[in-house]
């Protein structure tokens, strides 16, 4: 069901930034992580999900963000958000 992981542009451990603007095609990325940077933790590949949507979306990554980077505060808790790669760009160090 899952396309080869080789189609991914990113690797586990990469630091990535979520784009602010909505790339054409898939609108489904939570607004609160737009513009935020996180670490890729899981590569899911391109997921064939014909019951939910037509066509194949770009490869999907789980990206881990500290809550404090997204919403401020001092929490050490984390947000793992699944983001399609067309929403992601490499982040500076």
């Amino acid at each position, binding site marked *: 069901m899952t396309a080869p992981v080789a189609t991914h542009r990113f690797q586990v451990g990469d630091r990535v930034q979520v784009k602010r603007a909505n790339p054409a095609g898939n*609108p489904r990325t939570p607004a609160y992580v737009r513009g935020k940077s996180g670490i890729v933790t899981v590569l899911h590949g391109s997921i064939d*999900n014909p019951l939910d949507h037509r066509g194949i979306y770009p490869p999907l990554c789980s990206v881990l963000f500290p809550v404090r980077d997204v919403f401020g505060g001092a929490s050490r808790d984390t947000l793992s958000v699944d983001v399609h790669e067309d929403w992601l760009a490499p982040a500076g160090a």
Partner: protein
Amino acid sequence: MLGTGGASTDTMAHSTQAAHGHMQDHEGHVLAVEADLEYWRTKRLEPRVLQLHRRGVVTLYDLLRAAAHISAPPIAASIAEHDIEGRIRALEDRLDDYIRGIGLASIDPPEHPSVIEDTRKERGDYDDFFRIAKPHHDGTLDERIARLEHELREYQRLLQVLMHALLEKGVVTAEQIERQRAFLAGRGAWNGALIVARAWVDPAFKQALLTRGRDAVRELNIPPGRLGKLGVAENTATLHNVVVCTLCSCYPHDLLGDPPWWYRDDSFKESVVRDPRGTLAHRFDLPLPESVEVRVHDSTSDVRWMVLPRRPAGTEGWSEEELARLVTIDALVGAAEALSPASIARTER
């Protein structure tokens, strides 16, 4: 909301209910019915009606014709007006019927495929313009219950009319409906409990579950479903996972049945991403020590997450069936730990 038939499911519903105790919070129960009722109407039933109408499959005129054959659902059997708890329980039962009915109306005949994405636009997920308005559910508790009783009757009537029209127009057959009914009855939170129990006793199964997701559940004779990938987040001594879908309410429905009612509630979604630890502590009475990291998984529709809770102490030598009874629907999304053996013993005394 757990009862989907079958002895095993009943056992679980019993233990969950017992753990939550007697109905103490009437307001909370009414709020839950209001939220669920409107979710299923505005996100599932009416977008489907509009979609079928636009495609000319079942038009509004077909519905009018079908309505002539459907009488209004009977008023619920004699529950005294002052019996608030009885009326709320009756509402919850009828809401379950309504939700199961929508499941039957969402059959996917090959000529008229029902892809969830198709109704997302229709139901206003991307554009407020298309959002279906929800009525205000305000007033006294009594007024709110009376309004729900009325609305549930009306909404159920629309559902019956739609089913009649689908059959009349040959969009679905009675046989397909029966098959769907059997399919829906066979899934539920009990599946999730069985999966967790097997993972507790069988390390090889756990490894397969964490790495391969859905494929692994076949060995439990559970149909794996095919609604995206199943993500499984394992709780450990230093990590507690909690699942949310802030964009809609993605959940492995096809495998685990319905999520807890509050999973679709906007106030839960907003608070759990901003303050996961505080939300668990205050909303779910689950305070976690500082040494435990709380990790929120915000799903897309492509990976549907469930939590693998930790096995409670004092359960050495328990059978899988016994262990499964410790796993509540809340534990499957990380809003609770698995029940302790002591809490089960208490409820059975």
